[in-house]
């Protein structure tokens, strides 16, 4: 029997039992959607981090308080217990470490920025004038935060290009006042668009003097009542002096934080590579976790297919007998049921693929609107992999029912009521 015919028979059988087929596919659909979502978002994150590193350069170090994992996820806005960094620490590093030519502290808050009836939820980063150079930013309009803004704790703000667009339709933002909570900030500049780079994209950020953010927006204090800094970015003069810089910073901070010999640091110094590794570890764990859920779903889906195929073989025993009587070989019967199982699973896979695709696009849109630029990437390789995995599941779980159908004795099958 030609394969086209086998395919047609299988398709007809599935269409006849539409609801049953759909329900059977569900496990595969969910499993594959999860896998697709996972892989494409994972790749998006990967690309984002890559972009982050490229925008910073390999000679940048980040000093963060406490434990690296906690630093990565960001402390909550209560008192930090495991350690802290302050502007004084930052100043000390800037003054004493010769291998460092740029020091830039940052405090990040998440706020709603309002202008008239428009509003935008975004990260407001408190920082210093060095930020522009560190991140290679340009200004589309106005000026950046100045030393005077910093010292005077002025309520000024520089908007990312996308925020500026969403808040100010036609009007020139520079010189206008936006509201964050009950505070009014004067817009002094608008950043040029940086495009897709990094998880935290400046297009969706607003920048203000760190002193202002510390006193107005960030309520976090050390146990001693000092205002905290979330992280300090440092640019080392040359990549070859990274270790030297690290050692000096460690010495200074240990001394300033009065850490006794033999005790652990209450801060971490990470290079971009280390940050990448940390992120990769976290995403790897997530991928493993979600991946095993997806695998279980696929397994359950496969068992569902096997179950329904066994039912189908039983129901169609007489049909099998008739086909055998008019000349079907065991192989023909085997192929017919195997094709049916594979087709069932493949259809589920295709639907799951589309669902996963849609889901990952939706999620990346949500993430991007939260100022985290993650663009999900669904590549041809994922599509092919997903489809072949689903066919494989159909074949694997379909072989037993199909073999049972093929083994039926035609005489008994014809007698079956």
């Amino acid at each position, binding site marked *: *029997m030609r394969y086209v*015919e086998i395919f047609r028979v299988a398709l*007809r059988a599935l269409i006849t039992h539409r609801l049953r087929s759909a329900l059977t596919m569900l496990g595969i659909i969910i499993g594959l959607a999860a896998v697709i979502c996972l892989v494409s978002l994972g790749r998006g994150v990967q690309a984002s981090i890559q972009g982050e590193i490229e925008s910073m350069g390999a000679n940048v170090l980040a000093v963060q308080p406490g434990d690296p994992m906690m630093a990565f996820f960001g402390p909550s806005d209560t008192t930090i217990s495991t350690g802290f960094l302050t502007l004084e620490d930052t100043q000390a590093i800037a003054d004493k470490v010769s291998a460092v030519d740029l020091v830039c502290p940052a405090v990040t808050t998440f706020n709603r920025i309002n202008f008239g009836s428009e509003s935008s939820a975004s990260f407001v980063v408190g920082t210093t004038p060095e930020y522009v150079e560190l991140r290679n930013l340009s200004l589309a309009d106005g000026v950046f935060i100045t030393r005077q803004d910093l010292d005077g704790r002025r309520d000024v703000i520089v908007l990312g290009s996308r925020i500026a667009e969403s808040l100010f339709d036609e009007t020139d933002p520079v010189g206008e006042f936006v509201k964050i909570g009950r505070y009014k900030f004067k817009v002094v500049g608008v950043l040029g668009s940086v495009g897709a780079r990094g998880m935290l994209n400046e297009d969706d950020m607003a920048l203000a003097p760190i002193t202002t953010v510390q006193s107005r927006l960030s309520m976090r204090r050390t146990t001693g009542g000092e205002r905290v800094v979330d992280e300090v970015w440092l640019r080392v003069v040359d990549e070859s002096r990274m270790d030297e810089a690290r050692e000096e910073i460690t010495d200074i901070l240990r001394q300033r934080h009065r850490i006794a010999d033999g005790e652990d640091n209450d801060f971490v110094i990470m290079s971009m590579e280390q940050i990448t590794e940390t992120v990769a570890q976290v995403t790897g764990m997530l991928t493993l976790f979600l991946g095993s859920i997806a695998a279980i779903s696929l397994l359950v889906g496969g068992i569902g297919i096997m179950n329904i195929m066994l039912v189908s073989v039983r129901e169609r025993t007489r049909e099998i007998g008739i086909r*055998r*009587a*008019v*000349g*079907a*070989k065991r192989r023909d019967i085997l192929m017919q049921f195997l094709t049916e199982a594979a087709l069932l699973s493949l259809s589920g896979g295709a639907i799951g693929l589309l669902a996963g695709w849609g889901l990952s696009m939706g999620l990346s849109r949500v993430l991007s609107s939260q100022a985290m630029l993650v663009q999900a990437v669904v590549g041809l390789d994922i599509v092919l992999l997903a489809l072949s995995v689903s066919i494989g599941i159909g074949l694997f779980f379909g072989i037993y029912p199909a073999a049972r159908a093929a083994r039926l004795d035609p005489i008994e099958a014809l007698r079956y009521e």
Partner: protein
Amino acid sequence: MGQVEVHALRGVSFQVQRGEMLAIMGPSGSGKSTLMNIIGCLDRPTSGSYRLEGMEISALNDNRLAEIRSRKIGFVFQIFNLLSRTSAVANVELPLLYSGAPHRRKRALEMLERVGLSARAHHHPSELSGGEQQRVAIARALANNPSIILADEPTGNLDSRAGQEVMALFDQLNRDEGITLVIVTHERDIARHCQRSVQLRDGRIVGDESSPQGGTASGPQGMPE
């Protein structure tokens, strides 16, 4: 459950000539079904020999049996055994599908025309009367131009008029086209239609009589024993 050896048939030996119309008669339990399954190449005799057109069937494997069924046997069943979800013409196409014949749709339509059902080709079995369904089954049996048409109680599920129509169709196929027919039945009327009837009881042949019309014998065809 112990294994009990049952001799459904023993010492059965007869020949069917090409172009013959033969009835196999006997009460239930006489071994009719077993004999029919062997003639129809669905089953093999435990011992003995069955030759179809000179070919020894009893030693063939499952695949070869399927091929023989596909090319040389046409089945007609008491309960029609059509696939309920497919049209009449698709049912007739079924054997052609497995024999790999070309122009299947055209040939299937020709077969339906032969049994006078062209007009009902695209109806599903549930939309056809019993007699019509049985005619579709006959068209299906004819599709691969078989050596034998094997009918198992072909009128058993039909009213007498439809039964007569089916028998008339068999007569016509046998007389005009020289098709070899083996009909398993317990109805005397049906047996009288045939040139010859073989009586079975307890797995043995107890009678083999030819009716006056006589057959157009032309060489041996089957011989299970």
